[in-house]
């Protein structure tokens, strides 16, 4: 991978898990995100809010490498990831869920999670890194070499020979996946195809899947969308629990003010790609710009126009 900006152990230690500095991205002429800054440390539980089309999801996509930022830099675990592919960023400990649920619909709930808990995630990551890098350099031969190497490193042969080690690995993965399903209260759905799960459970399954990649930072894109008040209440509890049990940093995109205000210690407000406010819930709540941005939006309704 990019050996140029290899950070020292010291930096790694005290660097925030996820850091965005002056990130901007433009599609054609349109500025989707301007000078976006963010830092998430272990144990953080932050919110990212804003009216529709404010660029929240875009921000997620930049952070997770789906889009490449046009300016600024994103660092995961202190390492610069602007040029990396999403899966490589994921290997560095960043996982996400999707606004429009993107489960592996035909796979069982268990398999959905198992996909995420990959065997020997790290040698895998390293090997794939090699292959990808080689491909980037475009040398077919180097790429072939890299690929053969990957076939070995990534332990395909183990799975073909069904070595005891491999079987143990598989068992570990299954147990881990089952554990996660249990945490998310989905164990009873173990062998159901994802597409047959009710909406709320699909959202939770997505979270379980994300946790499967053993992330340090978890990005939740509207986890409560389409849930009723009860489910939302449970979700609030759950998210906090996850943060503590898995010692994560969590960033939530959410429309529901109550939920965000309820759980987040720190909130960033986006509007038209610009960061218009940042701070503790009560600060944000009383911020003029925010109210303007939300004028006539659910916020005013829920709080009877309080300002």
């Amino acid at each position, binding site marked *: 991978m990019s050996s140029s900006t290899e950070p020292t152990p010291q930096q790694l230690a005290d660097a925030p898990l996820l850091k965005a500095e002056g990130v901007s991205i433009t599609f054609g002429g349109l500025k989707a995100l301007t000078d976006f800054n963010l830092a998430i440390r272990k144990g953080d539980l932050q919110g990212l809010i804003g009216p529709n089309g404010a660029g929240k999801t875009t921000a997620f996509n930049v952070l*997770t490498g*789906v889009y490449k930022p046009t300016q600024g830099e994103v660092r995961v675990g202190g390492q610069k990831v602007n040029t990396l*592919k*999403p*899966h*490589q960023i*994921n*290997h560095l400990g960043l*996982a*996400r869920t*999707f606004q429009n649920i*993107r*489960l*592996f*619909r*035909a*796979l*069982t709930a*268990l*398999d959905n999670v*198992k*996909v*995420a*808990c*990959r*065997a020997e*995630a790290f040698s*895998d*990551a390293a090997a*794939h890194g090699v*292959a*990808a890098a080689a*491909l980037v350099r475009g040398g*077919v031969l180097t*790429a*072939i070499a890299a*690929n053969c190497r*990957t*076939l070995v490193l*990534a332990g*395909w042969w183990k*799975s*073909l*020979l*069904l*070595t*005891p080690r*491999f*079987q*143990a*690995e*598989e068992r570990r*993965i299954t147990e881990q996946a089952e554990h996660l399903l249990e945490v998310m209260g989905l164990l009873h759905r173990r*062998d159901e195809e994802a597409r047959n799960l009710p909406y709320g459970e699909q959202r939770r399954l997505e979270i379980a*899947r*994300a946790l*499967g*990649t053993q992330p340090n930072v978890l990005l939740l894109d509207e986890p409560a969308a389409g849930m009723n008040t009860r489910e939302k209440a449970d979700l609030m509890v759950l998210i906090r629990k996850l943060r503590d049990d898995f010692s994560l940093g969590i960033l939530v995109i959410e429309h529901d003010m109550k939920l965000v205000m309820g759980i987040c210690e720190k909130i960033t407000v986006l509007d038209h790609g610009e960061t218009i406010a940042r701070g503790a819930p009560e600060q944000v709540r009383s911020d003029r710009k925010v109210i303007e941005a939300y004028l006539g939006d659910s916020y005013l309704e829920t709080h009877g126009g309080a300002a």
Partner: protein
Amino acid sequence: MPGVPPGLRGALPVLIALPVVVVFELLLAGSPFATYLLSIMGVNIILAVSLNIVNGMTGQFSIGHAGFMAVGAYVAGVLSLSLKEIALSFLPVAVSDQVFLLLVLLLGGVAAAVCGFVVGLPSLRLRGDYLAIVTLGFGEIIRVFVQNTEMFGRALGLSGIPQTAGLGMVGFWVFVVVLVARRLAGSSHGRSLWAIREDEVAAEAMGVDTTGYKVRAFVISSFFAGIAGGLFAHFVPIINPGSFTFVKSMEVVVMVVMGGLGSTTGAIVAAVFLTLLPEALRSAFAAMGAEGSLAQKVDQIRMPVYGLLLVALMLLRPQGLFGTKEIWEVLPRWLPRRRKGLA
């Protein structure tokens, strides 16, 4: 397989299968027709199962499989033509022939795998039908290349290749490819492939190196296509470009889709069925008034009927025989069921 020590589990199927294929071979040594038909069937199974790894599991639509088959067939064919007169002094001729056969098969497979890698690269950028047409184009290019190369016998084809591929060898490779496919499906790598088929973006976000996996799926599948070609070249008296047209690729795609995308056993059943179908039609027609004047025309009717049957079958069972499931998952409940994703 409960109650089997994990150390043995890996080897167990091998221990079971090898004697079986050998017995098979000995039993059928007497009837060349059965041998030939089964060999063709075996080759088709290998092709279908290997293509299923790309089309079914990974969801990449490739229709150039005959091209890889051709690569394997011609590489292996040319090699064993040059090795024809050589034997290993310390082995009986029959055995040493098999050793050489294994060797050339592997080389042919590797050659095909390299081509598979080269074709796989575009798949990093292309989607769906565009990838399909590229694979098709590749297959055709291979054919033209063979047709213009003196070494490969041009249009006449390559004949005189030692006919050393017996049922044993074919059966062995059928067994290998099925084992690989099943164990892949059961492993974390297999799940990554499924994930790519289901949702590439999500897979990538969950840390699956989609590009890497796609290319590797291509490499593995084309390797076995090469093996199939090599076997083909060693029991069909002559190989010529006409045997590797895109019609052949289509036949394989049909097998995969009919079996149900992603279902290994489905691919096998479909391959068996579609190989026997024409012969069955032949027998059926022969049965009714074989030597009548109609009988002369009868054999022509097979192919149109075959085409119509394809349509009918897809209309009756659009998801393929078993959908994405394996045979034991669609069998009646009273049979012991197995969980998906376990080899």
